[in-house]
């Protein structure tokens, strides 16, 4: 069984990159990933026995980031708080510009596929959707990104 430390060392930075590029917000990504990792640490014996411990952590991180974003949105609405605009350093900024026009779901699927390097089955489990939906979402996103990149086949 892999130790938490070894898994954490390997996966942490990739998870931050995936979530940051999905949301366009590093702060949100760090909050989501750190919270999910701390929960995984508590339950590592059970999590490590799962088919995809990383998938479980992504699922928790995405849900937590979504909750925090909702709360921030509410604060912005009610307390007139400013929510920082996405301000990712290079090359994340360039990637974000490329994918910002995708829907939130498309961005999540693309990032889980190409940054987290997950299989379509794993992505389906993380996002709670079917493999078919993952495939069609990826296909649509690739078509759109292909157009944006000027090359339909390149991704």
């Amino acid at each position, binding site marked *: 069984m892999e130790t938490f430390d070894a898994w954490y060392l390997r996966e942490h930075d990739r998870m*931050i990159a995936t979530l940051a590029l999905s949301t366009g917000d*590093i702060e949100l*990504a760090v909050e989501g990933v750190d*919270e999910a990792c*701390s929960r995984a640490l508590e339950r590592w014996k059970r999590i490590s026995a799962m088919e995809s411990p990383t998938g479980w952590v992504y699922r928790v991180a995405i849900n937590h980031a979504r909750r925090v974003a909702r709360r921030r949105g509410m604060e912005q609405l009610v307390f007139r708080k400013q929510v920082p605009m996405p301000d990712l350093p290079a090359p994340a900024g360039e990637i974000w510009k490329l994918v910002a026009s995708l829907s939130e779901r498309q961005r999540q699927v693309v990032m889980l596929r190409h940054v987290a390097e997950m299989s379509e089955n794993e992505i389906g489990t993380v996002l709670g959707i079917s493999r078919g939906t993952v495939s069609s979402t990826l296909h649509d996103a690739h078509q759109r990104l292909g157009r944006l990149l000027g090359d339909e086949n390149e991704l």
Partner: protein
Amino acid sequence: MSQLTRLSQALIDEPLAPRPSVEDLWTRSRRRHQRSRSIMAGLLVLIVIGTFSITRIDGASPSSQTLPTLNAQLASYFRAAGAVPNATLQAVGLPSNVALPTKITPSVPTVATNGVVSYVGAEYCPYCAIQRWALLVALSKFGSFTNLDSQILSSSTDVYPGLASWSFVGAKYSSTYFTFDPTELTSSTPNNSGGYQPLEKMSAAQQRAFNRYNPQGGLPFVDIGNHYVTLGASASPSVLEGLTLGDIGSDLSSASSPVAQAIDGTANYLIAALCTMVQGTTPSLCSASVIRLASKVLAIGVASSSEIPGVTTSPTQPPTNAPLSVWRAWSVKERAFLLHTAANFRSTNPACTVLKIAVTPNRYKKTTLGFPPGVTSWAISLVGKCSPGNIGKGLFKSP
């Protein structure tokens, strides 16, 4: 490997954020459990109070004494808040960490708002929690409240979670000077759509003033007779953290306590604004030196130099990539410095007079002039007039 994978590999080779140690993760985990336990304890208290309420309605429970006792306790806190001695208000003065009410040019029909003090807030809102206390202290100097018997806690999941306060729902206020029209828009009970259960609706007049003077819809909103408004809390709700109603009630009469500094300091400005609404015989409090000073400050929109700590040098601007906490600290110091500067400003051109000087906030949505997004920067805005022949020579430079 896709192009996207190649591009993003750089983000893994040079991580976007530092990796917390495993010990940090354990600390985070422990904090989460502490928070959960606090929320559970809060829920338990609410269930117990709810049970007492139900048994009281039934009228058959031997514990039916408990609620009247609780209400009697609540009433005592409110009496304490309503009876903050004038000497305490005088001793508190006008602290620099209290925001001033803003003078407005009435631009909504005034028939329904003249002579009316209006409050729009919500029970979940931590900023409303502190503003209610200040309103209670101030309004109690001109009249009296009854039916303030609904204790609440602000949202447990928001900033400054679980602040002790009470609701204005069902409260009555009587005064010979003006009427008080409070509206609590929602409870602190979350609903399924990510918001809170609705409670009351604004009156048409309130809604007009709210839309006109508070277009961004922040809470709480206080409209003092269509002459002054406060948007949001006038002082930081952080002073209420961890305190019970009893603690707050007793701290209000201790001038040096952070609670009194924030709440009584806010009340001093509110009282000064309320004094402008009084027709006929003015209460003696309106002639107190601290209230007269507050009135002057309200008129010019800048706090008196004697009340502002002597921040005489402009703080050094942090680098753009400095942490947000460093920028926030800078923003506080910068505001204090500019307030000090504005309060002591005199035109160097004797032919010119300063009509209005104010310190105004500004926020950028993206990095501008080295200011990162979300940071409040400050500037002095100055309106003046010069005698004929001196126009254009400015207020700062001698002719």
